[in-house]
C-alpha cells in the first residue's frame, strides 16, 4: 500500500533521513521503532507531505504522491495523527470530529446553509466519538479534556477522514497504563478497516500489535521483519542498548 523508495533529507550538515526504503502492506500494523532522535517523526512528516524530501519517491497504492500536497494525500486516503497533540482546542469533541467528516464529504465551498443543519455529519462524528471512547464527552470543549482523552481525539480526528493508511505518531505519548490499554484496544479494533504505520516507544504495545517492525537509527533503516525476528536481531539490540526491548 505504501512504498518508500530511497527517501533522503538533510538539514544543513545533519542527515535526518538516510536512504530509507520501506514497504507497508495492506492490512498490517507496521511498527516503526528507534531511539529518540532517530528521525521517526521526520519520516512521518515526509510521508504526510508536511516536510519535503531531498531525494527518493513515495508511492501510495502505486501512485507517486511525492509532489502532492498534504491535503491531496489525505483525500487519497493517507491520514496522520501527531505526537504532540494537535486538535482544535476551542471546538467541542463533536465539532472536532464533525470537521474531519466534513472534509471528506462534499465541498466546503458552501456559504449559506448552516453546518449545524447537517445531521449526517454530526451522526457520523458521534459514531466515531463512541469508537474512540469519547461518546459521553461530545459537548466538552476539547481543551478541557484529560490528556488521555485528548490523545484519543487526536487519533479520532485522523480516523474520521476514513483513511486507508493511518500514520500514528506515538499515540500513547504521556499516557498512563490504563489509558494505554484503551489505546491498544482501539488500534486492535481498527486494524480490520485501516492499515496502520505505528511509531511507538511503548514496547508492550508494539509487540502486541505489530505484524511487522522496522527499526530506524540515525535516519537509517537497520532492520525490518516479524516481531520475533527483530527481538532477536543483534544490531537492533545494540542500537537500543537492550533496555527498551522486553527481555
Amino acid at each position: 500500500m505504501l512504498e518508500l523508495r530511497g527517501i533522503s533529507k538533510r538539514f544543513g550538515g545533519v542527515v535526518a533521513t538516510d536512504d530509507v526504503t520501506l514497504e507497508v502492506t495492506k492490512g498490517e500494523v507496521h511498527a516503526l521503532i528507534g531511539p529518540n532522535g532517530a528521525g521517526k517523526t521526520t519520516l512521518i512528516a515526509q510521508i504526510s507531505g508536511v516536510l519535503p524530501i531531498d531525494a527518493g519517491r513515495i508511492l501510495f497504492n502505486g501512485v507517486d504522491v511525492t509532489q502532492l500536497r498534504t491535503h491531496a494525500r489525505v483525500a487519497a486516503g493517507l491520514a496522520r495523527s501527531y505526537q504532540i497533540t494537535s486538535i482544535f482546542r476551542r471546538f467541542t469533541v463533536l465539532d472536532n470530529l464533525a470537521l474531519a467528516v466534513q472534509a471528506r464529504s462534499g465541498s466546503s465551498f458552501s456559504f449559506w446553509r448552516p453546518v449545524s443543519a447537517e445531521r449526517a455529519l454530526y451522526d457520523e462524528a458521534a459514531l466515531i466519538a463512541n469508537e474512540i471512547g469519547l461518546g459521553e464527552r461530545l459537548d466538552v470543549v476539547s481543551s478541557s479534556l484529560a490528556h488521555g482523552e485528548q490523545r484519543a481525539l487526536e487519533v479520532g480526528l485522523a480516523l474520521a477522514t476514513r483513511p486507508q493508511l493511518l500514520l500514528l505518531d506515538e499515540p500513547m505519548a504521556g499516557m498512563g497504563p490504563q489509558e494505554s490499554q484503551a489505546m491498544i484496544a482501539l488500534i486492535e479494533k481498527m486494524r480490520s478497516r485501516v492499515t496502520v504505520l505505528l511509531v511507538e516507544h511503548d514496547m508492550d504495545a508494539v509487540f502486541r500489535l505489530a505484524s511487522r517492525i522496522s527499526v530506524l537509527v540515525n535516519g537509517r533503516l537497520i532492520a525490518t521483519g516479524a516481531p520475533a525476528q527483530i527481538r532477536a536481531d543483534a544490531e537492533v539490540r545494540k542500537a537500543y542498548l537492550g533496555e527498551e526491548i522486553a527481555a
Partner: protein
Amino acid sequence: MKRAIAVFVLLALFPLAMQAVDGMFYVSLASRILIYAIAATSLNLVLGYGGMVSFGHAAFFGAGAFVVGILAVEGVRSAWIAWPAAIAVAALAALVIGAMSLRTRGVYFIMITLAFAQMIYYIFVSLKSYGGDDGLSMPGRSTVAADVTLSGDFLWYYLVLALLALVLYALHRLVHSRFGRVIDAIRENEARAEAIGFPVYRYKLLCFVIAGAIAGLAGALIANQSSYVSPSLLHWIQSGTLMIMVILGGVGTLWGGVIGAAVLLGLEHLIADYRIGWLASLAPNYQDHAGLAVGAVLLIIVMLAPEGIAGLFRRRRHA
C-alpha cells in the same frame, strides 16, 4: 437575531428623530459611520475571523472608491454599473495581492500586504488626470435610473443602512456555513486543518477576496458620500484606522466593525466639534492633537487586554 432587529429598527428611526430636532447633519455623519462600519466589518472577516493580519485592507476600500470616481468623471454614473465594477475591481486586487501574500505567514505576511497595498496607493496617486494627490471630485452621486440621483440625505442613509444589514446578514450566514467553519478551524489550527484534508491556501484566499469585495462596496459608498475620492483612503494609515475600529469594537465578532466605527468616528467628531472648557484652558490646541488620545487609548487597550488581542478571539467563538 432579535437584538439585531431591534438595533436596526432604532437605526431606522434615527433620521426621523433627527429631522424632528433639526439635526440633519447627524444623519449625514451617521451615513458615514455606517459606511465605515461596512469597511471595518469586512476587515473583521479576514482579520478577526480569518486570523489573517492584513495591513493592506485600505487598498480594496480605496480602489472601490476610485473605480466609482473614475467612472463618474468619465460619464458613467449609474450605480448599477459603477458599484458592481467597484466590487469586482476590489475583489480582483484582493485576489492578486492575496495570492502572493498568502504563500507567506507571520511577519512576512503583514509586511507584504502593507507593501502591496502601498503599491496600489502609488498607482492611483500617479493617475494625474484623475486627481493625483489632490483627490477626485465627482459630478455628484451615482444614479439609479435615468434622472434619479441618490442625493437626498434621507434616501442615502436608508440605502446605506439596508446595505449594512445585508452585509451583516450575509456574514452571519457565512460564518455558520461549512466555509465559515473551515475558516474558523484554520484560524484555530492551520496545520491540522490541512492534515484532515482541507486545501487551506484556497480557503484563506477566498476569505481574503470576499473581504476585499465587501471593502470595495464600502469604497463605492464612501465615494458617493461626499462625491469626492481622496487618495488617503488608500493609505496604510487608513488600514490602521480600520484595524483600530476592529479592535475597539471586538475582534472576530459580527458587530465589531459597527461598534468600532461608531466609537472611533463618534469620538473624533466629539473631540473636533465640541470644545471642552477646562481642557481648552490647559491646552488651547488640544483639538488639533486628537491623534494623541486615539493612540493612547489604543495602546492601553492593546497592552492591558489580558491575553492580548488573541485572547479576545478565543472568547468569542460564535460571531
